[in-house]
């Protein structure tokens, strides 16, 4: 509909349009928390439209059409899955087909206007606010923190926000954000700058009734990259807490890439009996325990094949999550990915509570 309206007549001739799309098929086998074995085949067609309306006005939308098949649709967990709504105000999520064997829906992934002025950029709508330097944990990102154990790690719901970014220099900026979610409003400001060979940021956030001050950096020691974040939160739900992540990464001449991160989550619990599962399931918190470690490696086996292994360890309950994978370039615009999420730990531990998950993904860009 948007394409028809905006693509009509003389308007289209005055406007630059760019269309792109991709198709993803993600097939997974696992078990629900209720112990039901299942398979699930997710298909997603994503249409991306980017348009330059005027020299300083543009908009972008990413629209999804998804359809699911597999025995997961007949499990006890499926109703919660299909009824889940991300904390956004308008997402156009509506089921198109809802049967025992096929569930199809549409949704809006991104939709925003971008106004560019000499004084900065204003972005209004559904967007991702890319704060933080952590690659596994992002305590300074109150909008879209990484959920590393998610099967679709790159997917972020986005927030409905107005963001103003004022450039201060080529490598420095001030970003002010207001985000209104159904039951939560967030105000944030982030001053990003470059000192020596290091990017660093100072930020302050009012998230509902909580206040957070934070800091992040990305630099280098010799040839290795180092990065980190620290967030100090005054919370109404919890005692005041600190969250700190520090990491480093290095690429060897033979293409071996190594990434390590350590995370202290002051909001978490050292005792697995005190884990706040309900808050985690609702998305209010992203991690249950206090201390974590991560080791990731990737290696180019050939010009077409890349293998990797990500290992995430809960230092408090000794449970772990291991993700080995192999990625294969099928064509110039298509790739395949096969892997597993292998969990280990006691039944009441964070990762031991889950089941192994095996997946095969195909992705095609056009």
């Amino acid at each position: 509909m948007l394409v028809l309206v905006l693509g009509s007549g003389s308007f289209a001739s005055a406007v630059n349009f760019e269309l792109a799309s991709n198709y993803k098929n993600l097939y997974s086998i696992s078990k629900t928390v209720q112990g039901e074995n299942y398979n699930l085949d997710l298909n997603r067609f994503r249409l991306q439209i980017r348009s330059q309306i005027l020299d300083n006005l543009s908009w972008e939308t990413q629209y999804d059409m998804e359809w699911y098949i597999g025995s997961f649709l007949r499990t006890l967990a499926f109703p919660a899955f299909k009824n889940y709504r991300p904390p956004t105000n308008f997402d156009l999520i509506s089921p198109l087909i809802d049967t025992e064997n096929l569930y199809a829906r549409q949704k809006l992934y991104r939709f925003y206007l971008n106004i560019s002025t000499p004084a900065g950029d204003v972005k209004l709508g559904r967007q991702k606010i890319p704060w933080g330097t952590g690659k596994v944990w992002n305590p300074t990102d109150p909008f879209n923190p990484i959920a590393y154990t998610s099967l679709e790690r790159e997917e972020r719901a986005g927030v409905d926000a107005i963001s103003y970014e004022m450039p201060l220099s080529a490598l420095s900026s001030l970003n002010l954000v207001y985000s209104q979610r159904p039951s939560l409003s967030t105000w944030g400001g982030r001053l990003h700058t470059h000192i020596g060979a290091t990017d660093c940021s100072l930020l302050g956030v009012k998230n509902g009734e909580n206040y957070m001050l934070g800091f992040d950096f990305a630099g280098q020691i010799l040839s290795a990259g180092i990065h980190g974040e620290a967030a100090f939160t005054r919370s109404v739900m919890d005692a005041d807490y600190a969250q700190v992540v520090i990491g480093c990464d290095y690429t060897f001449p033979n293409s071996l890439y190594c990434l390590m991160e350590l995370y202290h989550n002051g909001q978490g619990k050292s005792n697995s009996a005190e884990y706040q599962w309900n808050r985690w399931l609702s998305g209010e918190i992203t991690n249950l325990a206090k201390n974590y470690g991560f080791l990731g490696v990737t290696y180019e086996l050939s010009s077409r094949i890349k293998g990797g292994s990500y290992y995430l360890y809960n230092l408090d309950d000794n449970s772990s999550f291991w993700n080995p994978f192999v990625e294969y370039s099928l064509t110039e615009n298509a790739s395949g990915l096969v892997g597993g999420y292998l969990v280990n730990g006691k039944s009441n531990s964070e990762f031991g509570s889950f089941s192994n998950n095996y997946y095969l993904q195909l992705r095609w860009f056009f």
Partner: protein
Amino acid sequence: MKRIAIFLLLLFSLDSVFALTAYEMVKKSENLVRGNTNQGILEMTITTPYFTRTLKMHIWNKGLKKTFVRIFSPAKEAGIGSLKMGDEMWNYLPAIEKIIKIPPSMMMSAWMGSDFSNDDVVKESSIVEDYNHRILTEERLSGYDAYKIECIPKENAPVVWGKIYFWLRKSDHLPLKQEYYDEKGKLIKVLESIEVGSMGGRVIPILSEMRTIGKENSKTTLRVREMSFDVSIADSVFTLRHLQTLRAKE
């Protein structure tokens, strides 16, 4: 006595025999292909035994310290951008909608799976400023009379090569070939100018080929589709703001 004088003269670097020093020749060569600024469209074709893929990109250069690259084809990589400022580099990855700072260790890794490294593409290191140069000999190469110049890294220069041999066309110092050796003297990569032509009012290599030794049947070619030299390029191009802003039809 005369023989001694001639002998002593020959003992000095061959540089003293030529109108330009080796440094000046290399500098002139770099200026020929870069200018004070340049802006254009490049096509990089990566050929392996399994597939061939082509990346198309816009590139902007301002001096030796500022480079901006934006890939616009194929669809899978469209929108990926690279910014180099001084000795540092950042990438924008549309898949995660984020800017990533590239650590030094990643500079020598392959750019987008090609035979060119990140350093080759954004020219973090400078063959002019980071090396000492010496004319070794004159040779015939690809049908042209050429100087063969040896480039040895200066102490503490941020480079990984042990040495580079650089062949320049005698008539205009057009680069013809470069051989890259590691610190143990082993030949690692070869860059050759395959086709020379006129672009942006200059005669430059319009088709170059990079091969990694040991990777048989694999190569990367770089074709210049459009190029303008010494044009005015706004400093706003070389910013993180521009890196993370994707415009339709950039």
